[in-house]
């Protein structure tokens, strides 16, 4: 469950952002999980509620909406975009490696058109934060 470590990061980043925006309470946070990382939204939502400090009113009642973002890769040599299917294109070991370090996609995934490992991850890499809504201090 290294998901908890990523959940820590999300909580830390939310607190940081909320403080810099002078929020007193964060109401809603949108969390995007890249498909490459193979983390189930429900699992991550649980992790988020488990790791947030109950003592910090800033985040103790925050609602998290966690969504999976489909992976899109763009091949540099042939310039085509594609969406790999980890279930069929990566074996269990590769999927697990990419789960830990999404960049290891370059070790295991290839462009379906030209077979190159030289792609950019356009979207669907790892955990990022979208909208953060909250009450502003006054």
């Amino acid at each position, binding site marked *: 469950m290294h998901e908890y*470590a990523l959940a820590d990061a999300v909580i*830390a*980043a939310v607190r940081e952002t909320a403080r810099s925006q002078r929020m007193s309470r964060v109401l809603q946070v949108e969390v995007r999980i890249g498909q490459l990382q193979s983390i189930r939204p429900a699992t991550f939502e649980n992790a988020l509620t488990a790791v947030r400090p109950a003592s910090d009113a800033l985040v103790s009642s925050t609602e998290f909406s966690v969504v999976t973002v489909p992976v899109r890769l763009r091949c540099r040599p042939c310039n085509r975009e594609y969406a790999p299917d980890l279930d069929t294109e990566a074996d269990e070991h590769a999927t697990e490696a990419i789960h830990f*370090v999404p960049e290891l996609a*370059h070790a295991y995934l290839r462009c379906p058109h030209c077979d190159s490992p030289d792609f950019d991850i356009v979207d669907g890499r790892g955990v990022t934060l979208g909208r953060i809504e909250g009450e502003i201090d006054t």
Partner: protein
Amino acid sequence: MIDPRAAIIGERLAGVRRIVAVTGGKGGIGKSLVSCLFATVAAERGLRTGLFDLDLTSPTDHVILGAPMGFPSEEHGIDPAMCDGVRLMSIAMFSGSTPAPLRGAALTGALLELLAITRWGELDLLVLDMPPGLGDTALDAMRYLPRCEYLVVSTPSIVVRETVRRMVQLLGERHASILGLVENFQSGDVAPSHELAAEFQLRWLPGVPYDKSLEAAIGDVAGLRRTDAAKAVGRIVDELG
């Protein structure tokens, strides 16, 4: 969209007393060997020691230490592999010997991920084995690990010193803390890197001899510890306290 990982790095390293990056800007000067010896000698001295292989496309520390690579145990993060008293983190734990070509942006992504999820725990010393070049990982270390102290490796070769010089100049310009200069591959009495140390007023640390017994000890920590190179690195550890 906010990348949350940078926000947790400080906390992940909060239990680490000292971070020493072994650098030089050039490949093949012995950064990895000095990193591994430094970590094993420090562990032998009783320091709680970690080693993080930051040469992400060409990791070698697991080869030098003979650490079997496999997925880490995970519980609220991932645990470094324990290898003869050294806590080792290497991308080879995930990809083994499979080549992973990584462009710069991918190097930064992988580094941030590993910094965000690795649980180093309480350490007296974390050694960072830097990759060659003045590229993404060198810049990321300056950016995300400002506490780093740098141990600069050089060799007697003029070809190498020209390159090490660039790295030292860049570190100096960034006001990085440089622990000193180590000349590796020494033989005989001349120490040509001494000039470089003088020019940049770097502490001249004990040198490491060219040691032909090293090759046979690769992959065997006990054997490594018995080499003259390890003894020399031990003098560096002692001097740096």
